[in-house]
């Protein structure tokens, strides 16, 4: 895997916001298949900004992000075919069931024609209870929603995975279950970028970088 090209790559990436805050300062990174890179830092350190730059939610001030060799600002639609995303505080569509949410995002990610059982399998994998599969998401706890968010990322089966504060608000047991899933994804050969301020999360990572809030 060390000989393989990076799936996620940042070249001299910087982002300065309109109010002058320098959130990301000349970041260079390359994450290969099977590697987990952890952006560790306090609030305001630029971790989420980095994720947002990879997803083309905001344009970089300088530098470039690549997903599978594709410049995310030049061809965002193509680049997004190869990345899954788990955001912090996932709410999803409350009036839909877990399976319906999963089905919707799977189709958006290009995974049409999956069976119900395939959706159930993914939800079992993230340790969601069977009885909750057809329950409306508005009845879910935060931990359950986070698990569902992870299953949405899994079902897309993209080579890159971006996770923004995936363990925020999770109890220790759920956090441990998450780390197990992370390890499984790593073994499957996913290139994973995590932004977190949870130092225990970094134990599953191949690489970690520590950043502080910009002045």
């Amino acid at each position, binding site marked *: 895997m060390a000989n393989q090209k990076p799936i996620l790559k940042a070249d001299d990436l910087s982002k300065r916001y309109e109010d002058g805050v320098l959130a990301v300062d000349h970041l260079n990174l390359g994450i290969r298949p099977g590697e987990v890179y952890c952006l560790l830092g306090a609030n305001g350190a630029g971790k989420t900004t980095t994720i*947002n730059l990879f*997803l083309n*939610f*905001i344009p970089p001030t300088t530098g470039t992000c690549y997903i599978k060799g594709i410049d995310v600002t030049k061809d*965002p*639609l*193509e680049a*997004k*075919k190869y*990345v*899954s*995303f788990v*955001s*912090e*505080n*996932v*709410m*999803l*569509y*409350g*009036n*839909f069931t877990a399976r319906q949410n999963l089905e*919707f*995002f799977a*189709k*958006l*990610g*290009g995974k049409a024609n999956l069976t119900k059982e395939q959706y159930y399998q993914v939800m079992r994998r993230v340790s969601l209870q069977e009885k909750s599969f057809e329950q409306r998401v508005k009845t879910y706890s935060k931990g359950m929603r986070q698990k569902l*968010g992870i299953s*949405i990322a899994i079902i*897309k089966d993209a080579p890159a995975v*971006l996770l923004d504060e995936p363990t925020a608000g999770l109890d220790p047991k759920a956090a441990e279950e998450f780390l197990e899933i992370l390890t499984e994804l790593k073994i499957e050969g996913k290139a994973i970028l995590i932004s977190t301020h949870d130092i225990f999360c970094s134990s599953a990572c191949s690489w970690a970088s520590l950043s502080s809030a910009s002045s």
Partner: protein
Amino acid sequence: MFGELWKRQLVEDITSSKFLINFVIILASVIGFSLLFLGHFQSLEESYSKNTNANDQLLSESSKELVRLLSAPLEFGMKPGPFLFISDGYEEKIPKGLVFRPKGYTPDIKETTGLKKASSPDLSVFYSTDLTFIVQFLLSFFAVLLAFDAFTSEKEKGTLRLVYSNPVKRGHLVLAKYMSALLAIGLPLLLGLIIGLILLSLSSVVPISSGFISGLSLFFIISLLYLSVFVLIGLLLSAFSHNSKNSLVLCLLVWIFLVVILPKSSGLFLNLKRFDVPTEQEIEERVRKVEREVWNRHSHEDWMTRSGQDASTKLNVAVSNEEQRARQEVYDLYLRKKIGAVRILQSVNFISPSSLFEYSASALAGTGLFHFEHLWKQVTQYRRDFLNFFMAEDRKDDQSDHLYFHPDYLSRRPVDFNRIPKFEEKDIKTGERLKDAAKYLVLLGLYNIFLLILVFNKFQKYDVR
């Protein structure tokens, strides 16, 4: 991809409490209005029938002597039709009808003040309530409520980030939300119209024809065009806002401005004096003035009536006809100015989609100002036919001096009532109605296109975080 976005949005919209409340209120309004309309229409028909009978009665009594036909003051109100269900074209400044007001010579046409509205006073408050009103106010409000948080709610939930972490075009989401909202507002309206139509057809009061059903279908399409404007306004303001509360406040303010303030503010300018429209009193003064001017012009001549064939009698008749023409010109000018003033005010209101919708619905239904102009044209033609008939009958009488239209020198023979031309208002053809509605529809269409472009452009730069 677009299909998935649209399907999900549609299910969410239709299963929401907003939609349920909207659905119940719209259905109740349309059904309630349909039932009220039945009673209102019946009394309008009775009133119109009463007028027609009164005219026939007058003609019948006058038919005992031909010359008395010139003295019969016939009143012609605007004929009620089933299209009033769609739009009653309520314009308080529009004349209610026309009347022959003879001055002893030829009849002239002027606005009537004598025609009565539907007899039941309890229904008076609903005279200006029609389907157009329900769509114009109620449904447009619901359209805005459906769309105001289209983007902001997804942003607040975090689902927008999740959606756009996938290869989804921004425009697809806009289109999905737009189409879904339009369907969610159109569905209850369509159902309401169908139920309303069934209620009307079950009663024997309102005549339902294929023309009426086509008109109702067109009204539905026009309504969608109008409601689309407010869905787009909701989407646009949602794309400008970053939270749902701000978006709601903005949407409500814009709705109040476009639907309530702007159309009604033209009423501040609806002082007819500004358009040089004389009052009734001024009209009568002008009429007397032109009458005096005509007679003064001939004051040096001998126009005293003597016998039928005397030159002075003939001059008297000629001057009287000149006086009548001058009088009619004053009345015609008055009506033209009044209609012109309303048209100018309508053009001021073109900026309001609410007014555009109202005018297009009224034109489609053939009511309001359009109806009055049509009536005026027909009554003018009837006047010509009436006078031609009169002259033809008079020429058959050798005892008459045939001096048109001095009452002392015309035939006093009885005339067969059944041969007297009766005024019967013809319905406005569908093509004419559509032609009149077309300009408003084009503007509504342009409004939609403009707003759609704005929404698409704005959302391209929308911060989805």
